[in-house]
């Protein structure tokens, strides 16, 4: 039986380290026996999580399978083949991947989740382009727009995790990102259509977004205004 050299407490026979300061138990005459039974059952982290994961997995599969099967059956019975049902089924596959993957990803693997979501969404839209035979719009317009959106989200996540953004600046960055994304989408559209590179509709969305964003950044930097807003809007 050892004493903790930091805390001075006597450690129970089953303690390999001090539970108060995590200093290893040092007793050269009686080294701790890892197989010795513990005074209290030690928690098994997987136990509760596994149960909840199983339930969630079951629910997701149910949410995926039932509507998919219904769509396929109705499409087959009404049209004698598969036509429109591929779209909702593809969307459900995308939903399934986007809900299941985060459950099995370790905590704080947000970037991996973003990458998987991007790939899934791109694959779905590429499939829609291919099946619908509605011309080439994925690679010239959708892919760069999606890529830009995901890069913006990843950058915002990075800055938020680094502690550079608070709630107000996240909102400001969000509005700025919406404005930029709209302008980028219009540019990609005009490039795809070989039109002159000017802004028409995007400017009407981007202008108020950027105005809002700048206002929020200004409010965030001005303590007096910030406190006045908190005072008036607190709940």
């Amino acid at each position, binding site marked *: 039986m050892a004493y903790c050299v930091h805390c001075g407490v006597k450690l129970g026979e089953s303690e*390999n*380290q001090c539970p*108060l300061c*995590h200093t290893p138990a040092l007793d050269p005459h009686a080294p701790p026996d890892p197989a010795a039974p513990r*005074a*209290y059952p030690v*928690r*098994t982290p997987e136990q*509760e999580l596994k149960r909840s994961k199983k339930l969630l997995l079951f629910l997701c599969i149910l949410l995926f399978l039932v509507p998919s099967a219904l769509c396929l059956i109705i499409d087959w019975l009404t049209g004698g083949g598969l036509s429109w049902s591929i779209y909702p089924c593809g969307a459900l596959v995308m939903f399934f991947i986007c809900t299941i993957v985060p459950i099995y990803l370790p905590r704080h693997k947000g970037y991996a989740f973003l990458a998987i979501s991007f790939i899934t969404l791109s694959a779905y839209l590429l499939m829609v382009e291919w099946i619908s035979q509605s011309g080439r719009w994925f690679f010239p317009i959708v892919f760069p727009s999606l890529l830009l959106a995901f890069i913006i989200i990843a950058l915002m996540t990075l800055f938020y995790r680094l502690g550079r953004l608070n709630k107000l600046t996240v909102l400001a960055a969000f509005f700025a990102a919406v404005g930029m994304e709209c302008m980028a989408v219009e540019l990609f559209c005009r490039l795809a259509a070989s039109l002159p590179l000017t802004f028409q509709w995007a400017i009407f969305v981007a202008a108020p977004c950027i105005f809002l964003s700048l206002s929020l950044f200004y409010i965030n930097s001005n303590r007096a205004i910030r406190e006045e807003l908190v005072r008036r809007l607190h709940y």
Partner: protein
Amino acid sequence: MAKGKRWYRLDNAAKLYPAVATSRWSSIFRLSAELTEDIRPDLLQKAVDKVMPRFPAFKVRMRKGFFWYYLEEIKEPLQVVPDSGHPCMPFRYHENHGYLIRVFYYRKRISAEFFHSLTDGSGGLTFIKTLTAEYLRLCGHQVSFDQGALDIREKPTPEETRDAFMHMPLPKVRIPRKEGRAYHFPATPAIPHTLYTIAASIPADQIVEKAREYGATVTEYLVSIILYTAFLDQEKRRPGRKKPLRVSVPVNMRSFYPSATLRNFSSFINPCIDPRLGDYSFKEIIREVHAFMRYHLNPRLLCGAIATNVADEKNPVCRAAPLFIKNLIIGTVFRRSGERGFTSTLSNLGKAHVPTGGEKWIRRFEMQLGSPSLPLCNCAAVTTGNELRLLFSSNILETTLPREMLRFLVEEGIPVEVESNMEGS
């Protein structure tokens, strides 16, 4: 309600707990008896089967009425189960026939967990003593049903299932109870459903003697150590934005109004110091805590606090509100105040006498408070023989409170032995 099943109204204190319970948290506590021999599950199951009819107020499930929850009798038997590493998990009303009590065994320990709507620490201790006495009798030992253990051959009395709050001489006055927020130790929340346990064994005679040196009781001494630990921690971490330090101490109302009820019959007092007013030495803290406890531990003030709660319950508007509205309001009030007003909780059950004949087989009783609703560390103490068993329960990764508190005791010359359920220790 099924025909022929008895039902009980929730007592005044019990009404709070189902309203604030969620799938992640509910108010639970655990009482355990550690024996000198390994537990035999078959005999423990027999003991539970024999003991449960003696405690009709515990053989119940939670039901929703239109205006209030109520407790309904359960006919099915309660199953004992091996203990897991997840103490005081929230009760789910549809599991285990709806029982709001669980009985576990682990090596030499019998444990019972109670949803707080059923009973308080005193009622729980009566149950665990009775269960342990019956178990030891089934093992062939001569153990009496005394020293707080109920005789299972006798029939339960109406007094035992009575709502004792309704039979108190309550004043008409309502005492304001707003106390504001208190300092909490900075904490990293553990993953949900984790409750870390650190158990400390302390020689009771030495801690009593040390408390007497300060002119205080053991509870006052322990509360003072918590406040002093929090005071030093706040000085170190947040010297610029100090908050009051407050410890919630449950009070057994049976000490003031003798009652045989096994249901809730307790109140709280909250000894407090305010570091915004200046610095404190440990001696000053213990003097303040002693004065606070002497002043507040009187039946008039305790009744006044209970009268405020009962007045809320009897308010015609409140009574007429449907249950979901009540739940919404109570839940909101609890989340906004509740445990935010306390730095920690210390529940001292005092001396737990072992049933006659059981001294050889029962090593100790211990009590554990369930997971706090906020990232906190609470503690509970029970004295058996010459051992005070102090159990810290926390849902946080840091061990600041138990570490500093037990180090303080060691520095005071009191030997401490610790055990835990923490991984790797």
